[in-house]
């Protein structure tokens, strides 16, 4: 479930809210200030999850811009294209392997 963190400044103080949809209905959860336990718990959860959603967003942004997504996985430098094919690059940034559907092409 996608949750969006938003920030409001009221009376000079900052407050954080988490917003998400439940069965189409927008739910707002109050987290408090940056020192509140609820806000810190949310940050810890983000740390534990390791920003996986950030990778999916980066992929979408790269594909929208017309370039492949670039990353390192299991010691391999990979370019992933919108159609799912992948190029594995060597240390000199030359393509050493092409994969389609997870298999070597």
């Amino acid at each position, binding site marked *: 479930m996608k949750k969006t*963190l*938003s*920030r409001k400044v009221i009376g*000079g*103080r*900052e407050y*954080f809210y988490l917003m998400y949809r439940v069965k189409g209905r927008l739910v707002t959860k109050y987290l408090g200030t*940056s020192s509140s336990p609820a806000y810190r718990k*949310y*940050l810890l959860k*983000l*740390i534990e999850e*390791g*920003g*996986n959603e*950030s*990778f999916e*967003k*980066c992929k979408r942004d*790269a594909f929208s*811009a*017309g*370039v*492949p997504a*670039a*990353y*390192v*996985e*299991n*010691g*391999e*430098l990979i*370019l992933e294209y919108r159609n799912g094919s992948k190029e594995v*690059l*060597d*240390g000199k*940034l030359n393509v050493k392997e092409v994969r389609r559907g997870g298999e070597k092409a």
Partner: protein
Amino acid sequence: MERKPEKVLILVIGAMGSGKTTFANYFRNAFLQGYPTKDLQDGILEDRSFAYETSLLLPKELELVKRAKKKGFKINAYFLVANKNLNVIRCRFRSIVSGEKFDETAIKKNYEATYKNIAAIYPEIDLLFLVRNLKAFEFVAAYEPGLSDVSSFLSDLRALKSEADRLS
């Protein structure tokens, strides 16, 4: 009595192409607490919380961070560790998309400088996170420089960098 708000300088540090802007944009309201990204000198003069992205290549930046500390800023830092070749690729694609200049030689030449220069501002930082960015952002370790020696941080950083730079 009105509470005086704490001033925070959030540094997002990493070599060119390591994902600083992506990190800052994605975690704007989380780890950057909603603070805007500003020029370092302007932000310090305005005397309000802000974020700043840097590869720590300019001596002036190191001096300004020390000045921010003297002015009472609390300094939190996120140091991004990636892979040198991955950084080159990211910069290349960014130049294709945005038209900005791409200088592979400069990127490779300056890569080591970021890792070297972090030691100079380590004592000024209140809370420092090491974040690996090879695919997704992974929070690897956190340090409180007031409580931990720079040598243990540098040892961890060298190990993480060495592992990240190794390609099969």
